[in-house]
């Protein structure tokens, strides 16, 4: 029984690695289950004992990656410095840097999350709670630090930041932009967004 479980785990790992590479090398739509099985050195049948569909494979590839990204962020978090804008930008910079290492894979993940037939297990792109909470924490600290107005609607700030972050990946898709270029754009966007919620000099409430 232990051997069977080990075999299954080994197959799963091989398939996930093969799929991750193929999705990034030739694209998600172009990759077939057969191609994944061949690359992984397993049979098509054994792929289907662990995964229900190609979309399921993609969602598990991405789920495995989330942990890696989380580790990088956790390592860096204590070292964030500067204004709230700086810290927010650093968090996004780390994301861009990480995902751009396998950008085609990430674009496939984004596209899949808009698909009408979404796998239940998929964390749809943009719904990563840990990511959002990390940003929210920095924004809250920003209020404490006096960078951000106390009456600012932080949920709205977060939404606007996340939308800008997400759609900057289009630059990678359309213009082959790299992580640094996307980060630079995000910095300019973050500056405008957070300017909208910085305390006014006179300390009175603004137009909102």
């Amino acid at each position, binding site marked *: 029984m232990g051997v069977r479980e080990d075999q299954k785990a080994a197959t799963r790992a091989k398939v996930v690695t093969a799929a991750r590479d193929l999705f990034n090398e030739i694209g*998600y739509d172009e990759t077939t289950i057969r191609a994944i099985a061949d690359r992984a050195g397993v049979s098509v049948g054994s792929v289907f004992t662990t995964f229900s569909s190609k979309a399921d494979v993609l969602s598990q590839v991405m789920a495995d990656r989330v942990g890696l990204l989380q580790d990088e962020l956790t390592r860096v978090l204590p070292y964030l410095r500067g204004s709230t804008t700086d810290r927010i930008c650093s968090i996004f910079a780390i994301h861009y840097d990480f995902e751009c290492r396998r950008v085609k894979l990430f674009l*496939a993940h*984004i596209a899949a999350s*808009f*698909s*009408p037939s979404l796998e239940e297990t998929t964390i749809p792109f943009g719904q990563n709670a840990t990511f959002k909470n990390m940003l929210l924490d920095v924004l809250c600290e920003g209020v404490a630090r006096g960078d951000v107005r106390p009456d600012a609607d932080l949920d709205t700030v977060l939404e606007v930041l996340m939308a800008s972050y*997400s759609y900057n990946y289009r630059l990678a898709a359309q213009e082959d932009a790299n992580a640094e270029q996307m980060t630079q754009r995000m910095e300019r966007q973050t500056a405008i967004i957070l300017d*909208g919620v910085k305390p006014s000099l006179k300390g009175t409430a603004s*137009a*909102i």
Partner: protein
Amino acid sequence: MNHIPMRVIASPAVRPAKPTRRALAKQRTREKVLAAARQLFTERGYEGATIRDIAKAAGMSTGAVFASFADKSELFDEILAKDYALLGEAMQDAAKSGATVCEALSNLFGVAYRFHMKQLPLLQAGIASSWTRSDAGEQRNREALKPVMSLISDTLIAGVERGELSPKADLRLVSGIIWDVYLAGYRHAVFDSWSADDLTSRLSDQINLILAGVRS
């Protein structure tokens, strides 16, 4: 392409000839294919709808489809372009009806939300395919969106002229952020069953926040 007989072109005093039967037939084919494609893209998304299925639904051969459209993405983009043309007109009127730049923007995006809510799966397919579009597809999409994008930037410029927004504001960037937030809103329609009014109200708050960063 409509082939107008040469003898008609030779006599300019004559009013333009009716399109030939062939041209009309081709036009009808085109429209049948577009209608069938619209239906299938709506039901199955971009990837799920094949040229074979579209041809079958339109009652013709795949060859006939390819005579009018180079590939599936061209077909899809034409459907989206037609919608944007319609939408652009409706948005023009809405943009004029706001007392402030925020109101004007909310109104014009409100029109967009209401328009697309009636065919949400097609919009979803459009957003999904935008991440893996070819260069040619990207060009077509940019062209189709030009009128809408111009309208947004004109509205922002009017805001500067009215003294609401700072002349130093990077309007292109602001416009980009607003567009991204508008698109991101559709998630709530798809996954949380929000109505067009819900989306518009939320976007209004978001626009207020964004513009607060560039007020004069």
